[in-house]
């Protein structure tokens, strides 16, 4: 959906025209619950490795197309990962290698 008001960011949608509210719900998958848990744990006062503002800044800087195409917790894990990279908690190289390892493990498991 294109942004009808160029002065507004894509996530800032209050009051804009939109369709009927579909009463959709789903049971959250374990990976989604884990994303939620990562955000809570990383933001905890004992760690302070992410703030809600950092999460939102990274979600809200997604392009309109990505924002609408990604599911809710996809946007979250994308943003959490960006913050951890920006803060130097993890590196792009480490992340790439870990994803490769996980994919290889998954393929083996069939």
């Amino acid at each position, binding site marked *: *959906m294109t942004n009808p008001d160029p002065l507004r960011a894509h*996530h*800032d*949608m*209050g*009051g*804009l*025209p*939109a*369709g*009927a*509210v*579909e*009463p*959709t*719900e*789903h049971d*959250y*998958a*374990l*990976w*989604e*619950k*884990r*994303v*939620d*848990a*990562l955000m*809570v*744990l*990383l933001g905890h006062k004992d*760690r302070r*490795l992410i703030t*809600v*503002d950092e999460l*939102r800044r990274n*979600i809200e800087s997604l392009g309109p197309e990505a924002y*609408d195409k*990604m*599911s*809710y*917790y*996809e946007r979250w*894990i*994308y943003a*959490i*990962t960006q913050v*951890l990279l920006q803060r130097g*908690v*993890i590196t792009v190289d*480490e*992340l790439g290698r*870990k*994803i490769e390892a*996980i*994919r290889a493990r*998954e393929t083996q498991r069939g």
Partner: protein
Amino acid sequence: MSHDHDHTEDHAHVHRYPPRPDQDDTLTYYRAMEAAVRELLIDKGVLTAEDVRRQVENMDGRNAGLGAKMVARAWIDSAYKQRMLANGSEAAEEIGLDVGPLKLVVVENTPTVHNVIVCTLCSCYPRMLLGLPPDWYKSRNYRSRVVREPRAVLAEFGTVIPDDVLIRVHDSTADMRYLVAPRRPQGTENWGEAELARLVTRDSMIGVALADPA
């Protein structure tokens, strides 16, 4: 169960619908990213697998029963209700509900005012008392429209608010969450707190529905 066919198998084991596919079965790009980030954080000692498991369990244990307990208490104890409306976070803690660092504001429905909550910018929700939000709460259509035409949106949920009742829409923020205290249903005068709490649904505390009738 259909009686049109002559089956010999044990019907108790026949699936009438295909089982819902497990979303964890498909290793999507972002699911792999979640696993990778979590494992890296565990490798680095930032957190443990046990921390993650415990936090998932903590959220799984949160549902609308928590908010319902607070609303039912307010229905039977007017002094408590005043404290709840003055300071939601303290009132929740007073009855043993953990609301964490977020500020909780409880807004009361009356014969002349109906309240409904939204987060237009993202998905802020009184998750500490209701659990994780339903998908529609986070949807573009709800977030866009409920602030402009709440009466029409509520009607889509089957909730028709009379024209002489004012509708107040509360836009939540990351640090401050609203919870709606619905009106106590008629015919519940002698009911106890636990019985009353069963009438207080999640949707009634979001404000898209009324409490269940007695």
